[in-house]
């Protein structure tokens, strides 16, 4: 990009400046016809981008702006939107206990579930990294759940397994623990949802494993020679060298967790229950906008979600410098 810009500066073919530059930095000097080529390349670039540009503007950017507008209105699809200023937002935060609960359980789900998933993924990745032989099989077996985890089928299975008299409940009964099923219990349904998300650790684990393979073995050997124990080697070698991967997984894990929908919807039969404990922000948004037809209010919920995700991403990017190390080689 920058080279294109430099190329255009030098245009006069006969100037002595140009001849001088040609001797010193030949790569910066455009040959005759280069400007035309650059123009053709721009045209080609935009031609290739046509589908993406239409999608970006038509289905992402303009809709975003429109939903921001809608969030300041009262709108039910049938009559035109009515401007009500900040009313929707004020109501969300002061007069809507359902939203406050929804925000709370979503945050718990995100802030508890994501670190646990990440730790499980990292632990299993380190276990798999110990030995290559046979590891490929386990790697694939652990990956399968993350491919199907968000599907309705899995939500139905999960519901059957954790229901009263389901295998999990019965298994716990054998151990003398009688919980009476997890599905109907306000106190147990959120832990169950977190378990479901942890069960899908496979994709994160595969990324960690790829990262671990990049860590030079000599570093561990050197640390061992210096008398570092396993924990010290993990802290001083694994974590710093893996920090870009940890950052990546943490960012995508947090953002993905905010958007959990299908499993919560199916497990609660679309109600968000019991006692609103599966009424995640996306479920609440769906119910408000599409079941109750309060599109303006739902748009406000969507924007609160966007802002929270943006803040978390911003904080992560800002703190990145202090704990994420990009080494010169390979990355």
């Amino acid at each position, binding site marked *: 990009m920058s080279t294109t810009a430099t190329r255009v500066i030098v245009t006069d073919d006969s100037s002595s400046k140009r001849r001088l530059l040609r001797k010193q930095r030949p790569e910066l000097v455009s040959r005759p016809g280069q400007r035309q080529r650059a123009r053709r390349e721009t045209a*080609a670039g935009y031609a290739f981008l046509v589908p993406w540009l239409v999608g970006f503007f038509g289905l992402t950017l303009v809709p975003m702006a429109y939903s921001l507008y809608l969030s300041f209105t009262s709108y039910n699809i049938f009559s035109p939107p009515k401007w009500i200023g900040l009313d929707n937002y004020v109501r969300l935060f002061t007069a809507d206990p359902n939203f406050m609960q929804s925000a709370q359980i979503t945050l718990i789900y995100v802030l508890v579930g994501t670190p646990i998933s990440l730790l499980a993924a990292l632990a299993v990745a380190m*276990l798999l990294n110990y030995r290559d032989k046979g590891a490929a099989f386990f790697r694939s077996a*652990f990956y399968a759940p993350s491919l199907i985890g968000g*599907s309705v089928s899995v939500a139905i299975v999960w519901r059957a397994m954790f229901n009263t008299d389901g295998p999990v409940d*019965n298994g716990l009964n054998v151990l003398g623990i009688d919980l009476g099923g997890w599905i109907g219990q306000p106190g147990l349904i959120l832990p169950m949802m977190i378990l479901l998300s942890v*069960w899908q650790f496979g994709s994160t684990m595969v990324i960690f494993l790829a990262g671990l393979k990049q860590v030079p073995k000599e570093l561990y050997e050197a640390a061992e020679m210096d008398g570092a124990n396993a924990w010290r080697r993990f802290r001083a070698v694994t974590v710093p060298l893996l920090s870009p991967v940890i950052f990546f997984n943490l960012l995508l894990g947090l*953002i993905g967790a905010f958007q959990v929908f299908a499993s919560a919807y199916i497990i609660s039969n679309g109600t968000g229950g019991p006692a609103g404990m599966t009424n995640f922000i996306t479920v609440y948004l769906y119910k408000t*906008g*599409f079941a109750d037809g309060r599109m303006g209010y739902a748009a406000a919920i969507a924007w609160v979600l966007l802002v929270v995700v943006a803040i978390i991403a911003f904080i992560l990017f800002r703190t990145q410098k202090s704990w994420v190390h990009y080494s010169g080689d390979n990355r």
Partner: protein
Amino acid sequence: MTISSSSPNALVQLENQVDPDPKTSPRRRVKRKTWQTVVWFIALITITAVVLYPLVWLFVSTFKPNSEFGQNQGLIPNSPTLDNYAKVMEGIAGVPMGQFFWNSFVLAALSVVGTVISSALAAYAFARLQFKGLGVLFAAMIGTLLLPFHVVIIPQYILFNNLGLVDTFVPLLLPKFLATEAFFVFLLVQFIRQMPRDMDEAAKIDGAGHFRVFWSIILPLIRPALITCAIFSFIWAWNDFLGPLLYLTSPENYPLPIALRLYNDQTSSSDYGATVTASFVALLPILLFFIVFQRFLVDGVATQGLKG
């Protein structure tokens, strides 16, 4: 290297080379290694059992007659039956199961076509062409990677509703043909950037235009990445729940996930067997896909950081 028996010094030297620590003789180290491997295997097999249990339970339960749910605590059905499959194949709400399957298949297959074409075009522009605005647009593309999809569903719904396209497949397929899933664009950009430029330079000198370079050189080179994109877009479209839930209203248009919801709502209290079996049938193509293509899937994730 050969070690003659007449020079024991060489042997000592060699042993020191192999193992600088005199406390652990080679034999003891091998023994420790074997032990560690055994523990390693046991740990991983335990994790495998826990992780795959729900899937095994699902499969086995499809053979349980209704009366056994809640009664038979064990994994194995007491009197295995195929009744559940017969019931599921009849379908629900007057629509045969085959129709739901077909709808899912059409949606997933067209999603693959749309995603692969539009994402590859965009990725070529981002990865290989130099033009004004590239930086800003690329940043915007990365930004949509992090954007919660829910922010645009309300305006998108209003748009498609005004166009009279609700209860058609268009709202579900059009975004795929417009490369709105930034993951795929990003994955292909990363892949194209790794490809050496020699071949496209040579083709350009021979007078090939950009489309020619894209079609005849880049596309064949990035085939593994295209396959990864195709498999993922198929699976994601197959599993998609929110999109069809929003846009499809008549049962004959339902793909499997929405049909499953009907089973779940209408029959879960009375007919566990049918619900569980329908879930398994819906999952079966994905599981088969996974078994056949797992190398592409897992490697695709490993190299590009794509999420399942």
